[in-house]
């Protein structure tokens, strides 16, 4: 944390020449992110979103860009354990955070997360584009513990749109994992 203060106190130079097309862009800002358990030192421009950083710089294409405006949920990842829209998070503001994407949910030996298994079991997707966001969101929902019934699951999954309309099976998949966890 002390190191972080040092780094940020100095601020970063503004982009004086941008409008005229001149070269000087602001310096890239050094940040540290732990992505799917791996700690990484990165350099980012202040306007790079976490979504673009994951996809373009880290080749983690599982997280999807849908609307890019926080309306569809396809870009949902876990930031310090909480589900958020990575398209609306500037990467620089998440310095020091732990990020979990769809690629980080399975165990290192390849065993899928119970919710991933349940999505397959319940046929909870058609085209699959929204699926990584749906699953990250569902994993967080299970941990949060606010939703107990199918109706509540629907409300708490309302931030994830599915244009194929696989909602019924998505709710079933989440409900099945919830039932197994409750039975434990």
């Amino acid at each position, binding site marked *: 944390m002390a190191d972080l*203060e040092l780094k*940020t106190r100095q601020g970063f*130079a*503004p982009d004086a020449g941008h409008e005229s097309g001149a070269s000087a*862009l*602001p310096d890239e800002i050094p940040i540290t992110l732990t992505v799917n358990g791996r700690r990484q030192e990165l350099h980012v421009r202040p306007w790079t979103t976490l979504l673009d950083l994951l996809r373009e710089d880290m080749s983690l294409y599982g997280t999807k860009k849908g609307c890019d405006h926080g309306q569809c949920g396809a870009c949902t990842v876990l930031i310090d354990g909480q589900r958020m829209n990575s398209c609306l998070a*500037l990467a620089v*503001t998440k310095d020091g955070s732990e990020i979990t994407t769809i690629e980080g949910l399975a165990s290192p030996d390849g065993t899928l997360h119970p919710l991933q298994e349940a999505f397959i079991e319940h046929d909870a997707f058609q085209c699959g584009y929204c699926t990584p966001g749906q699953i990250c969101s569902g994993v967080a929902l299970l941990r949060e513990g606010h939703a107990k019934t199918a*109706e509540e699951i629907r409300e708490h999954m309302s*931030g994830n749109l599915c244009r194929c309309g696989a909602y019924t099976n998505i709710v079933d998949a989440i409900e099945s994992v919830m039932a197994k966890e409750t039975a434990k």
Partner: protein
Amino acid sequence: MNRFSYARPGSVADAVRELAGHPAAKVIAGGTNLVDLMKYNVERPTHLVDVGRLPGLKEIEEAGEGLRIGALVSNTAAAYDERVKERYPLLSSAILAGASPQLRNAATTGGNLLQRTRCYYFYDPATPCNKREPGSGCPAKNGQNRILAILGTSEHCIATHPSDMCVALAALEAVVKVVGPNGERSIPMADFHRLPGNMPEKDTNLHADEIILGVELPEPRFAKHYTYLKLRDRLSYAFALVSVAAALEMDGDTIGEARIALGGVAHKPWRVEEAEMMLRGKTADRRVFAAVAERILEGAQGFGHNDFKVDLARRAVIRALSQAARGTPQSQTDKRIQ
């Protein structure tokens, strides 16, 4: 998105100084509204001051007989806080009526207060908009105005404030604590947001060099008889066409203090204290509620597509007062309206 520089000050005092040194700077915390607007080139700050980690603003604390919610408390943390749920369930309910779990996790209390309108013209830099570009005109008045205001509008702007949280805060008479170069000051919710008048570019009375520290809720009085009734085009994850926060003190069937604030109908949460006074000492009764609704909607005017809102708001006030008087608040999961 335009190019900008970035700073993450380590203290509130440093943040205030940072802001004072950059007139075209914007404050960022959760970023759920600002980053969206920057992607549309509606906001083009040259400098971002990241207040997201400032110490001392992430707590919910006792404050006299009330509660103080720090500016950086997430909407999720505020809505599920046991003290908020028990003493100010209206606030909890209103927050949970808004956005999605993902957005509520990122969005902060301070940021929610500073949300900008969702008017289509404000969001589209290809069109004129007096709020975005003062003096350019307001195409909304004769355009797509289904979601826009019916109360407190001006010839320059018919935008609405989109927040649910703020409607509850207005009804609860919360006070916004802010700090600037000249120190701290308190702004009652009633004075925090502005009507558009001839300066629609100015949403609030917060000065450009001030930072929100938090909101203070007064002594809880409406934990039993309240409701947040939100009506919208889809049942979840949509902005209100009309919403009503109603809070009553009840002694049997007799109403004591009453508060009613409307969302989705004006440039700020809409309260008419005179209408609230009409309820004091009265028996909870539909005819009384109808008279109150009539008073609240006095002077309401649609602009074509949003004409329906006048009647919708009138009916929503009556229904919300019935729910509050009965002590059966609107469920934010089961959307059926009882």
